[in-house]
C-alpha cells in the first residue's frame, strides 16, 4: 500500500515560507500531477516527499508510516530528475543497476531486472553506452529505467519532459501514462505544463505561491475551476475573463458586458448568483465557446450574439485562434478554419454560455462552485 498523506506540510527557508500548510491525500496507484507556475512550491513539495528537503512542519505519511525523518533510501520511492542526473562515468546498464548493487541484490536478479526494464523502455541496445553518447529522449528513458528496476511503490517525477523537444514530449507523455498502468505504482509528477497535467493525471493539484488552489480530475478542473487563477492556468488559449454586470431577467439572470446581454443558463445555482444582482463580476468564457454559428446541440436560450473586432487571426491548421477586441478587452476565440476574416473586420460570433464561469472580482473565487 502506498497511499500518501500530506498533513499541514510546511517548508520555510529562514523567514521565507515556500509551502504553506499543504493537505493532500494521494491514493494508492494514483497518478497525481502537481502543476503551477515556477516558484509555486510544487518541486519543493515533491522534494519533501522524496526526502531531499527537510520538512519544516506538518506530517508526511506513506501508507501509515510517518516519514518525516526517514532517509530517502528507506522510503521505497524512486525519482526521475529534471536533468536526469545519470552518473556520467557509468554505462547505462551500470546506471540502472547501481541502486540494486548498493542494496546488495544478487547479480542474476540485478541482470534480470535491468534487462526487463530496458526491454520495456526499448533501450536494450544502449546498455553499454555512457550517458553522454545518448540523446535527450534516450537519457530520459534511462532515468525512468533506473527508477523502475527497484520496483518502488512510489515514483516521483520532477519535470521529466521539460528538456525534450515538443514532438518527443508528446510521445513520452503517452509512454509514461502507459508505464503507470503497467507498473501499478503511485506516480507523483511535477510540471509547469498544463497540457501534461491534463493529458496524464488521474487528479491534478494546482498550486500557486505555496498554496494548493484546487485538487480535482482534469475535466472537473477545466469545467469547474474554483477561482480565477485555476480558470486561467488550465486551458490554452486561456479562458477569457470579462467584467460583466449581473441583472435579474424574468426567472433567471443575465450578465451584461459592454452592452452585450448574455443569458446565464437555468442550470446555474440561482441562490449563489442572486447576491450579486446589480454588481460587477468577472465572467469567464473559454475560447472554444465562441462559434461562428450556433451548433445545433446547444439550447438557443443559452446563446447570445457577441460582436467584436478582429485584431489578429492565428491559423493553427485544425482551427483558427481569433484575437478579438470587445469593449476595450482583448480576448481569444477558437473558430473553424473555414471562418474567413481580415484584421479590423467587425464580426459577430455566437457566445455559448452553457459552460460560462462567474468569479467574485475581489476574492477571485468562483461564484458558481
Amino acid at each position, binding site marked *: 500500500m502506498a497511499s500518501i498523506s500530506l498533513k499541514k506540510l510546511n517548508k520555510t527557508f529562514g523567514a521565507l515560507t515556500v509551502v504553506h500548510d499543504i493537505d493532500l491525500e494521494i491514493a494508492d496507484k494514483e497518478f497525481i500531477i502537481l502543476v503551477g507556475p515556477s516558484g509555486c512550491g510544487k518541486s519543493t513539495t515533491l522534494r519533501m516527499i*522524496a526526502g531531499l528537503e527537510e520538512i519544516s512542519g506538518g506530517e508526511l505519511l506513506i501508507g501509515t508510516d510517518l516519514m518525516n525523518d526517514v532517509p530517502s533510501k528507506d522510503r521505497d520511492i524512486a525519482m526521475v*530528475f529534471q*536533468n536526469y542526473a545519470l552518473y*556520467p562515468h557509468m554505462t547505462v546498464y551500470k546506471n540502472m543497476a547501481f541502486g540494486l548493487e548498493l542494496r546488495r541484490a544478487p547479480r542474476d536478479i540485478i541482470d534480470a531486472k535491468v534487462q526487463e526494464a530496458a526491454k520495456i523502455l526499448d533501450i536494450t541496445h544502449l546498455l553499454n553506452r555512457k550517458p553522454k553518447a545518448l540523446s535527450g529522449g534516450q537519457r530520459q528513458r534511462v532515468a525512468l529505467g533506473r527508477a523502475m528496476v527497484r520496483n518502488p511503490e512510489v515514483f516521483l517525477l520532477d519535470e521529466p519532459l521539460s528538456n525534450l523537444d515538443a514532438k518527443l514530449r508528446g510521445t513520452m507523455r503517452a509512454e509514461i501514462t502507459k508505464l503507470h498502468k503497467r507498473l501499478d505504482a503511485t506516480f507523483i509528477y511535477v510540471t509547469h505544463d498544463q497540457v501534461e497535467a491534463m493529458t496524464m493525471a488521474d487528479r491534478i493539484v494546482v498550486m500557486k505561491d505555496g498554496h494548493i488552489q484546487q485538487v480535482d480530475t482534469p475535466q472537473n478542473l477545466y469545467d469547474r475551476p474554483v477561482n480565477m487563477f485555476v480558470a486561467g492556468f488550465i486551458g490554452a488559449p486561456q479562458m477569457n475573463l470579462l467584467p460583466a454586470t449581473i441583472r435579474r431577467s424574468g426567472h433567471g439572470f443575465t450578465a451584461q458586458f459592454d452592452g452585450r446581454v448574455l443569458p446565464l443558463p437555468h442550470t446555474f445555482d440561482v441562490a449563489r448568483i442572486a447576491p450579486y444582482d446589480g454588481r460587477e463580476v468577472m465572467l469567464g468564457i473559454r475560447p472554444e465557446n465562441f462559434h461562428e454559428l450556433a451548433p445545433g446541440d446547444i439550447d438557443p436560450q443559452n446563446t447570445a450574439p457577441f460582436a467584436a473586432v478582429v485584431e489578429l487571426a492565428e491559423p493553427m491548421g485544425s482551427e483558427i485562434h481569433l484575437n478579438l477586441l470587445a469593449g476595450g478587452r482583448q480576448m481569444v476565440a477558437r473558430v473553424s478554419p473555414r471562418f474567413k476574416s481580415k484584421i479590423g473586420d467587425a464580426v459577430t460570433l455566437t457566445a455559448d454560455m452553457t459552460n460560462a464561469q462567474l468569479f467574485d472580482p475581489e476574492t477571485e473565487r468562483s461564484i458558481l462552485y
Partner: protein
Amino acid sequence: MLMGPQVLIEVRLPNCSQADIRQRGRMLVTIAHATMSDNPVQAGRKKKLRVVSKRRRRVENALIAYSFIAPNFLGFAVFTLGPILFAFALAFMHWDGSNPITFAGLDNFWRLFEDKAFIDALWNTIVFTVVSVPATLACALGLAILLNQKIFGRDFFRTAMFFPYVASLVAVAVVWNMIFNPEMGPVNMILYTLGIAPENLPGWAADRHWAMVTVILFGIWKSMGYYMVIYLAGLQGINSELYEAAGLDGANAWQKFRHVTLPQLAPTTFFVTVMLTIQSFKVFDQVYMITQGGPGTSTLVLVYHIYNEAFISWDLGYSSMISLVLFFLVLAVTVIQFRRQKED
C-alpha cells in the same frame, strides 16, 4: 552537347501491391548528367578568382593571428627557449663559466654513472615524488571536502589553508625549523609529553633518517592549500542532483564519495597529479631552506645537485647534463600520465 551517363533506376512503391505496380508499369527514371557549365573556360576563370581571394584572406588571417602571438613568443624565445637549447648543447661541453667552452662528447653522460651524489639525488627525488604526490593530493582533497561543507568559519579556514602557499618561503621555513627543532621545538615537546623517550625523539632536519620526512611534510603543508582550491572548484562543479540520485539509490556517505565525487573529480585529479609530479621532480627551494641537501646526501635532490654542480663547482656542462636527465624524466612521466588519462 555531350550527354552524361544514363542511370536506370527501378522505383518500387512500398505500399503498392504487385498488381498495382504491373498496372502502372515500371517507372524508369533517367537521370542525365548535364555538364557543369556550357562554357568551361568562363567557369574556370570565375573559380580561379575566388581561389585567389580565399588565399589572400587566409594569409591576412594568419598575419593577424601571428601578430597577436608574437610579443609572447618573443619573450618565450629569448628567456625560455634559448636557454633551454643552450643548456641542451652545454650538456655535451665542458665549461666553467669563464674559460672557453670545449666540446666534451659524451663525457658528461658517462660521468653520471660514476657520480655517487647523482645516484643519491635521483633516488631521493623519486622517493620524494612517490611519497609527496599522493600524500599532497589526499590532503588537498580531504581539506577541500571538509571546507566544502557548510561549517562555521569556513572562509577563515580556507584562507588559513591557502596561506602557506602564498607566504614567503624564507619566513615559513624559519618558523618550520623552529617548530621542528629537535631540542626545543613544540612538535618534539608534544611527542615527549605523549610518552616518547627523549632518545627516541626524531631529530627531524638534523637526522639523516628523518630529514627527508621533514622536507616532505613541509612540502605537503606548503602546497596542499593551492591544490585544495583547485579541488574546491572541482567539487563545486559537481551536479548536486547526482548526490540526490545516489542518496535515493541507497548510497551512504562513503559510497557517494566513491561513486560520485571521485569519478566526477577525475579530470581535476589528473591535472593535480601532473602538476604535483612536475613540481616534485623540480623540488629545490624547500630543501635549500631546511636541510641544504643534508645531512650527508639524505635530502640531496636532482635540482639541488644541479645547483651544486653549476654554482658551487662551476661545472656548467655536467650540471646541464643532469638537467637533461631531469627533463626527460619529467617528460616521460607526463607522457605516461597523459596516455593513461586517454585510455580512461
